[in-house]
């Protein structure tokens, strides 16, 4: 803070002590019309140079007028640039600057590299179907992978804090704006296959579905089931089942963390159906358990509340957007999930705090 020895201005409705037009010596000014040319030219040329990346981020947007308009403008631009060979040049320039044009979306620095773990030897050639997680040691810590969307990014960060580093390796794989509906944007089954093959997680914590209120498509973008039609629920549940099967295919365990109720009650019916699908799959498959986030964080009357009372203390747990959690909320959720893993799969309670 500055001291009160400095004088505060004592002018009455006077402007600053120098005019707004004064320029440092040597610097030239420009009239507004020319400045507009600079602005338009700068933005248009940048748009052309950056069109491939803009198209990729537009494709990541949920269906809607914004996405449609953006792609209607950008696709022809990129098509022309492709034909002229500009896209290759721009992508090469991007690569030289450290950006890999085809790197997986929704990730970035929040996604951990996958550790490589040699395959275990299964008796009779098949993975065991026990319901108990192995005892971790400091020499062989438990591998816990957190997969999913932005909610999973949140619990992933706080899983690192809740699980003890000496006994648990947390591998964060949360990717914002992803889900099971749009494998053309991000292919979660393919990524889960890679995670299982390379890192063989003991426990996979899944939190997915927040971005899935859109029509289901194939990895090539072909329509499968329109959201809001009777085809959607069974097709969606099938995707959940396939994903859970993949995650447990090498004997790992899965806790599917259900979606919390959002502040926007118009979304409740859809999310309750999604939670129903997650629950149904957990009931059907071995080594898969469903954690009910909705009822855990709902108000006593069943409505939305941003606060959580554990019987002793009141805590504000939800973020301002009414969807995500804040730091306290993610910590509480992660502790509850860890305790749930102890109930379901005998996770050693020494592996986590609280």
């Amino acid at each position, binding site marked *: *803070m*500055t001291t*009160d020895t400095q004088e*505060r*201005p*004592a*002018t*009455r*409705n*006077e*402007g*600053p002590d120098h005019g*707004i*037009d004064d*320029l*440092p010596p*040597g*610097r*030239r*000014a*420009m*009239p*507004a019309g020319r*400045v*507009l*040319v*600079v*602005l*338009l*030219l*700068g*933005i*248009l*040329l*940048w748009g052309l*140079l*950056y069109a491939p*990346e*803009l198209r990729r*981020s537009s494709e990541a947007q949920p269906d809607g007028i914004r996405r449609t308009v953006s792609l209607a403008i950008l696709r022809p631009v990129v098509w022309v640039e492709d034909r002229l060979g500009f896209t290759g040049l721009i992508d090469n*320039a991007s690569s030289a*600057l*450290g*950006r890999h044009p085809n790197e997986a979306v929704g990730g*970035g*620095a*929040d996604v951990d590299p996958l550790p490589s773990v040699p395959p275990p030897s299964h008796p009779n050639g098949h993975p065991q179907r026990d319901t108990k997680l192995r005892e971790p040691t400091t020499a062989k810590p438990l591998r816990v992978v957190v997969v999913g969307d932005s909610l999973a990014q949140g619990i992933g*960060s706080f899983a*690192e*804090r809740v699980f003890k*580093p000496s006994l648990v390796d947390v591998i964060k794989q949360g990717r914002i704006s992803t889900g099971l509906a749009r494998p053309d944007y991000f292919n979660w089954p393919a990524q889960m296959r890679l995670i299982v093959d390379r890192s063989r997680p003991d426990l996979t914590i899944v939190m997915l579905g927040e971005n899935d209120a859109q029509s289901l498509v194939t990895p090539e973008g072909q329509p499968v089931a329109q959201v809001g039609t009777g085809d959607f629920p069974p097709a969606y549940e099938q995707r959940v089942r396939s994903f859970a099967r993949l995650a447990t295919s090498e004997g790992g365990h899965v806790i599917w963390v259900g979606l919390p109720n959002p502040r926007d009650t118009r979304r409740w019916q859809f999310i309750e159906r999604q939670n129903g699908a997650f629950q149904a799959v957990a009931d059907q498959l071995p080594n898969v358990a469903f954690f009910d986030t909705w009822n855990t964080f709902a*108000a006593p009357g069943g409505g939305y*509340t*941003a606060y959580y009372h554990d019987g002793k203390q*009141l805590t*504000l747990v*939800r973020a*301002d957007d*009414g969807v995500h959690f804040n*730091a306290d909320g993610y910590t509480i959720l992660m502790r509850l999930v860890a305790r749930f893993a102890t109930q379901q799969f005998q996770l050693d309670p020494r592996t986590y705090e609280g």
Partner: protein
Amino acid sequence: MLFPTTDFAIFFCLVFLGHWWLNHNPRVWKPFMIAASYVFYGWWNWRYVFLLAAVSVITQVSAVAVDRQRQPKRRTLALALGVAATIAPLLYFKYYGFFTVNVTNAATTFGLHVAPPLIQVVLPVGVSFYTFMAIAYVVDIYRGDFEIASWVDLFLYLSFFPHLVAGPIVRPNELIPQLVVRRDPRHIDVAGAMWLILGGLFKKVVIANYLAGAIVDPVFGDPARHSSPEAIIGIVAYAVQIYCDFSGYTDIAIGVAKLLGFRFPQNFDRPYSARSIQEFWRRWHMTLSRWLRDYLYIPLGGSRKGTARTYVNLMITMLLGGLWHGAAWHFVVWGGLHGAYLAVGHWKDGKREAGQLAEPPDTTLVHWMQRLATFTLVCIAWTLFRADSVATALALLARTVTAWGLPSPLVTTPVLLAISAGLVTQFLPHRPAERLKVALSRLRPVPLGITVAVVLFLISTLGPRGVAPFIYFQF
């Protein structure tokens, strides 16, 4: 609307066109600029434009009520009521959840049952900034430093989009007089403006966003998983991140205002080159520092009421400054720590003036040691500011000394380069930058437009994907 987005680029081109087209006719220009600013603000949530309008109405009604009172006691009472009315929306939106949780838990500790309504109050962006500008206006009217502005000018003063969401906190006498005069469309400092906008984007998109993902977020997320070098570099990286993030935003805001022919006050002046905490606060978030000085510290008595009272006033000012940043205890402790730093600095100054403490030698080496000590103290305080709780901050500070010998994979060459780039800007001489600005100003529109496009492409490509909000938006 965020500055580094295509939405804003399109919005600004349209506003720029309308602004200079209508500039000659204030009766049309002012409503146009108010409408544009409200569109900018309503882009997040259209409901908040009613809050902005309500705060503007409360401010003007309060100021008129203060101005009409001639009797000093009644004038002071009107001021108190006016400031209370102006600040009430901020108190509700920013602190309701904080007080609900703390009052309920404190009551439970003492065996009492308190059940306030558990409402989630969403903090509208920018409310802390425009509320402070509103208070400055009412207090300046009370002091006789400023005359009542017209309703239209007051609405535009509070909503003017370049400063709306994260400052700078512009005083009434810095902006309202500029709204009254016509701007000259023939003389726009395009080179100065572009330098600020592109430099601000570079600091935000390339340096701040990169450091956040590469080291700051992981280290502050879970200190227990990181080595001492990672903890130290993570804390220093946050110091660079918050500087590049906030000063980057301010540079863009000042540059955007410049393109519209307006001057905003400087908000940062190489803060990490400061040789004392007092100097740091003269260089960091300067418009907040002077607001706290003029509208809180001086009214509390400043340094005019004795040594003990000066320390108390410094502590109150900095504790409230901390709470202004966020409704959480770690912000309060951050403010308290800076209050303590300032009190110690004040005590040392007093001792030196009384000849009881020797002046440090005036050598370059001593200057650099002072800079290093100041930067270290600032970084310790930043740890409290960035961590999600006091406990996490203390755990991270402890980690800086207890985890040597562990691998440090997050301390990479790009991280060290980004930190160095952020710190080097504090010490670069002004002249080469000014020469570049002169060279830019001599370019014709087409080469300048191409230069802008290429620099924008480099910034977009060098920065991480996605649009990260500015840190100060949450305040």
